[in-house]
């Protein structure tokens, strides 16, 4: 135990070093895991391609995915034939374990959507000076982003469906009329607008593009089979433990406790939740 201040000071400096070493070790462990998983994911990708509407079923099942796209997009989600998320570190040693590429392949919808596959790369950036629109950002946002890094991406081209012509930002010429503005903004919220997302123009591009990319990387791709089988359940109305909200939780009081205990400092009530 340190009493002299300098002893403690050294301990704190040592702890800071440990934190750095832990971060390095975490990244190395992540890279190891990425390499270990890669062949299994490859094998899985090929099997998934054989199952009709796999991605539509898996994405529709995920409770959050629909929060990021417009309801009308589901017509085109249904046309998704293949989704692959690849960590960049697999091919480029320079990349961290947090950089990845998402490839999405669409089937043709006759007269509406072209068959195509599009790849989009996402990288962690720490240089906040690259963020072009600073409006609504605080100095603290900058500090946090500079420390933890933030997701960015190069815009990529995708052919929009014909049915979206009126909201396709590239086809809207009258961006100054209220109608034109409205259509432009509606278009910017579709799944197709996400492919142009950069992470550098907050408020001026597809909203929460980073969160959607992370959702693919951390949940939709790795656990897609789980979501798919959930969607195929025979019993449809079962709640999912964790994902359940608390509003049905029982009044979490110990009956006997309430009835027996007098003036104790017992705190055994579920604090997280309000009662019911």
């Amino acid at each position: 135990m340190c009493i002299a201040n300098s002893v403690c000071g050294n301990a704190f400096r040592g702890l800071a070093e440990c934190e750095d070493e832990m971060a390095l070790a975490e990244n190395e462990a992540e890279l190891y895991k990425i390499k270990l998983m890669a062949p299994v994911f490859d094998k899985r990708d090929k099997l998934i391609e054989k199952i009709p509407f796999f991605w539509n079923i898996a994405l529709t099942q995920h409770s959050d995915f629909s929060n990021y796209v417009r309801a009308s997009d589901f017509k085109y989600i249904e046309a998704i034939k293949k989704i692959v998320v690849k960590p960049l570190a697999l091919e480029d040693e320079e990349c961290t374990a947090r950089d990845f590429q998402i490839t999405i392949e669409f089937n043709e919808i006759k007269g509406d959507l072209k068959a195509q596959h599009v790849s989009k790369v996402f990288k962690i950036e720490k240089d906040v000076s690259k963020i072009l629109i600073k409006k609504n950002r605080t100095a603290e946002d900058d500090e946090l982003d500079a420390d933890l890094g933030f997701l960015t991406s190069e815009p990529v081209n995708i052919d929009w469906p014909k049915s979206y012509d009126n909201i396709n930002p590239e086809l809207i010429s009258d961006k100054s009329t209220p109608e034109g503005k409205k259509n432009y903004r509606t278009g910017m919220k579709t799944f197709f607008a996400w492919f142009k997302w950069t992470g550098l123009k907050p408020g001026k591009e597809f909203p929460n593009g980073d969160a959607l990319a992370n959702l693919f990387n951390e949940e939709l791709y790795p656990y897609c089979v789980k979501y798919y089988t959930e969607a195929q359940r025979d019993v449809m109305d079962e709640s999912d433990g964790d994902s359940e909200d608390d509003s049905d939780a029982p009044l979490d009081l110990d009956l006997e406790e309430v009835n027996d205990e007098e003036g104790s400092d017992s705190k055994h009530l579920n604090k997280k939740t309000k009662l019911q």
Partner: protein
Amino acid sequence: MSLECYIKDALPFGHEFEIINLQSIPRETSPITFPKREAEDVNGKTVKTIKTQHFVALCFEEKVVFALEIVVYFSLNSANNGPVERLLFVSKADTNGYCDLRLDIGQITKSIIAYILAISPGHYLRAVKPLIRKALSGAKIIKRSTSVQRALEILSNRPLDSKGITSRVKIPDQDLYVSFPVPTEIVTKVSLFTRAEPQYLFSNSSKNPRKHVLSGDKLLKWWLKIVDQIVVEDFDNKTKATLQIPGEEKRVISNYLRNTAYQNWTVGDIFSESPQDIALYRIPLFPDDPKGRFLDHLISDGRISKVNVLTFWTELQARQEFRLGSTVSVIGVSGKYIGRCNEPERTDIIIPTSKKNFKNLKNYITGEEYDTEEGAEEAYMNIRDIFDMHYSTKMIKVIGNHHKIATTKRPEINTINVINTLSVHRKPKS
């Protein structure tokens, strides 16, 4: 009678509206009041509580403009053929200010409450998802506890339909749901809390300068008028109607009740018979109810089993969340419902197949940002498209039939939506 029939007389004549009428699957839940030990049998499961959520939204000119959320609880006491209670808890009601037409929101709200009061108890009790479902027999059933590997094994032996969905095993309703006999005698209660808030259901709608936010005092009077009308129209004259303003003097509370149409309004609440009753066993707790935090506090104080109803209201008022706001009130009705009784048509109400789907649908409305009109438009379009794609249905069209409201368009307000940032799009709050 459909919701359309109820609501049309509250909507301005000749104008077309659309309604979204959602309901959750009725499910057994834990009691909303803490069960008293003496009243219990060995298992403590004498009281069955059945909970059903309703969510109704009104759209005009392709925008969501108003929404109301009501939770219906049935409390069945199986021990001694005890009283059956039906409680309508009006949990949230909100406008967003994006309707270009003047609406009588009070009448709309009243008509929706009246519609839900008229839904026959059998509708809620016929097929209830039990608290604990008995184990389903049959190894080939895919359910929550089926591992992913096992589910895949089962799927490998099933044919897929044209959308890639496997043929599900048909499980008889009686294996999944329980039904309760429709009681002959029911005590019907209506309960709501009033407190002025910038927004209840439409996030950031208070930033819309056209949204009219009532003060706590006006809000109380507004609700009181609605509930007063409901009691007069749908309840017998022995019905108890109560108003409580935590921490306020009885004389002041009585003042609010001077002009009511119903004669038997009293100061107090519908939950207790005497102010000396122990609060824990009397005062119910609803979803997201701040009273829960107060009970929490009483538990750590070790006073939970001692505090009576009178002290409860007094101390509750002293809590920060009640002190800071303006007038907060608790309005209640308890008595015999004598109004109409309807069996809703299948086409009238949309009942999603799971609580999760119910929440997801609702989230298309409540998860939007309403600082600009865009939120109201997005919510409308998304619900319309989801109804079409996943529910093969449409919103219900209603033509207004209410002659009294002036139907002039509001004067255009000079450019309100010049904001050119894209609003956050239903991002789940973490």
